[in-house]
């Protein structure tokens, strides 16, 4: 029961990542693509949480933490570059 519901949740998250990939592919300005990148990484963060539950290892959550920190850093760096140079 629980495993089936989590399987459906993982499928919905994959669909969400595909929709943001469409915006990343088509977005007219560079800022659009940066927003799409941000939402894509946050969605895959919760996908990592589901992978950790399915394979039953707590060590995978550390990867989620590093992943979130580095995606945040990337968005900040690109936004600073847009604003007035690094």
């Amino acid at each position, binding site marked *: 029961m629980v495993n089936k519901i989590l399987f459906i949740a993982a*499928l919905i998250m994959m669909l969400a990542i595909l929709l943001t990939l469409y915006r*990343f592919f088509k977005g007219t300005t560079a800022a659009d693509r940066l927003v799409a990148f941000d939402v894509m990484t946050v969605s895959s963060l919760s996908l990592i949480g589901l992978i950790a539950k*399915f394979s039953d290892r707590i060590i995978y959550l*550390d990867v989620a933490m590093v992943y979130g920190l580095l995606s945040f850093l*990337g968005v900040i760096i690109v936004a600073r570059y847009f604003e007035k140079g690094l």
Partner: protein
Amino acid sequence: MLNIILAIFLGILIIVLAIMAVLNKNIVVAIIAAGAVSLFASVLYLILAAPDVAMTEAAIGSGLSTIIFFYVLNKINRQNG
């Protein structure tokens, strides 16, 4: 079963982002796409049972590489005018 679906999905995502990083005219978008390739490759390493490689790839391949690319791009723009 979920592992195989996730691996196929991440593979398609990685290849589409890589083709976009090669073909796009705008250099900023190309650098962001190359960073996204590294980030999704780290999720693929997680499915291939290598969490230490996933951590290092997310930290170095995506974070530090992007910072170095934008540092050089900023220096080039500043010399221009």
